[in-house]
């Protein structure tokens, strides 16, 4: 394990990225769509409120963006830390 310090920095960066993504993941699905729905009930969307839209459309769209963002960011991190596949 010659380049161990670098691997540690890479892993820490990965954990930070995963944490950020999962906070957004939870905030949209468990938050806006379910538990925090009453807080955003004033925002009208097509005959109902923002929480209902997040529950039936918005969360899925956010999940999509998160996975592609994570893949793009990680593939860049791989190269920066020299751990990408040759």
């Amino acid at each position: 394990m010659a380049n161990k310090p670098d691997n540690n920095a890479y892993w820490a960066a990965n954990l930070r990225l995963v944490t950020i993504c999962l906070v957004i993941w939870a905030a949209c699905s468990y938050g806006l769509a379910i538990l925090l729905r009453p807080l955003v009930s004033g925002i009208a969307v097509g005959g109902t409120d923002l929480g209902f839209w997040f529950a039936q459309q918005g969360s899925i769209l956010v999940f999509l963006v998160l996975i592609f963002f994570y893949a793009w960011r990680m593939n860049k991190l791989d190269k920066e830390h020299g751990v990408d596949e040759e």
Partner: protein
Amino acid sequence: MDQTTLNFLVVGASFALYFGIAIWARAGSTSEFYAAGRGVNPVVNGMATAADWMSAASFISMAGLIAFVGYSNSTFLMGWTGGYVLMAMLLAPYLRKFGKYTVPEFVGDRYYSNAARVVAVICLIVISVTYVIGQMTGAGVAFSRFLEVSSTTGLITASAVVFVYAVLGGMKGITYTQVAQYIVLIIAYTIPAVFISLQLTGNPIPGLGLFGNMAEGQSGAGEPLLVTLNGLLTDLGFSEYTSGNTPWLMALFTLSLMIGTAGLPHVIIRFFTVPKVADARWSAGWALVFIALLYLTAPAVGAMARLNIMNQFWPQGVEGEAVSVETIQTDPAYNWMLTWQATGLLGWEDKNGDGRIQYYNEGGAGMAELAAERGWSGNELTNFNRDILVLANPEIANLPGWVIALIAAGGIAAALSTAAGLLLAISSAISHDLIKSVINPNISEKGELLAARVSMAGAIVLATYLGLNPPGFAAQVVALAFGLAAATLFPTLMMGIFSKRMNAAGATWGMVAGLVVTCLYLFTYLGWFFIPGTNMLENTAANYLFGIPPTHFGPIGALINFGVAYVVSSMTAAPPQHIQDLVESVRIPRGAGAAINK
């Protein structure tokens, strides 16, 4: 040409396509049989994963579940897609880097323990076998309704089709058949939805139409579709479509489905087929793109079908007269009620003898008074099986015959593609993890390939038998599959990657604890081994521990697994250095190519 002939032609053409692919993509080695030679393009794998994942439950049942409950069942939409975020970030890339063929293989190697490997095989088989029963019965129902054969004939035909391409092609054959099945099922699902959305709202994209206004010529023209639907429902004593209660239970159930999804072995192994770690990350995103096409459409299908059904039963609005029995029997627009009545999945009864069918919620607030005033004697739509909603949807909306034939092919494709993925997970666990790793490590490559094919054939026979003689608890068993995946495999896999300190004893006892406690909780309310009448407590909210229903138990089982694993591993020795090095190497993508086919 009559409808049944048309259905036969479309379904037959789809089968011919699957067979053609099977012959073209025969597996010649164990690497091809287990992991399609790791040569699958990430977008193609995403499409195959979507078909692998979207089962008869997604295609046939989900929109019906949403239609009759509304907002509260959004849990299925978020739960069955949100799990991919967990899989993409916590499992898939690292397991691909590990570079082996099966989920128990990772557990056994990472925890340097054949005990852990065997416990993982048991969990995998319980999860996958219970799951596959639902697919076989789903295919049987679709066959019997659309091709007018008995459901036994339908089920055996479905098994024979899977047998041909799964035994011949292994993962390679299954991958490319799943791509074809995805295309069939997504076309079948979206075309009727687009038609119906156009009819009701004038918007061709169902997910937008759901939040749009009613089109000209529709009742309630100009006001939002959801307002019209809420109005109709509350007038008839049903609860509002867009409201729900007990948010914490919704959140818990969503979490259970998400963790369960991420821990399902037949989905995880799909990510072993791509060439690189970076591809596994992209592939998870593509899988969700293809899944989202159906999942963003499903809530619209549910709401619009519910609206169409309400309008059919109350053609003059809630204030006017209900539909007459004579109309149902003579008007072609009501033909679907007659065909589905014949299957026993739809039923009505003119209780008050007024020659009309009143559909309302007799338990709703103020409905007893309204019924007395208008001379109703209770709800007369006595039976509406939720599973028929998607299958009957094109008929309810009066769409052309070829659309109905497509739905038949789509439902069968959804069931077959998932069944094949599950059967592969089962057979590779037997031939690779039990036979090759534990019983006979010296088996030749050719011998293992043969063992894999024989296990596959055996798994299909077992699945067919269970499909023909479904243990009367198919619905509960699906809850068991998700609960167990959440409580056993997901925590064990995650700790294997994210904790270098986790050792064999911790992981094994964690899995056993998750498995046993989850099973006990389910058996307490649903009966020992689901045998009716043997439950110790009645399955009602008053009896639940902290109010948690057995279907929502997955996250609690996962917590128990994590907790037990942590305590046991901190009391026992750390894993040996070469295992800690293995964890280090799994965490970085470099060198994934070298790990291939070891």
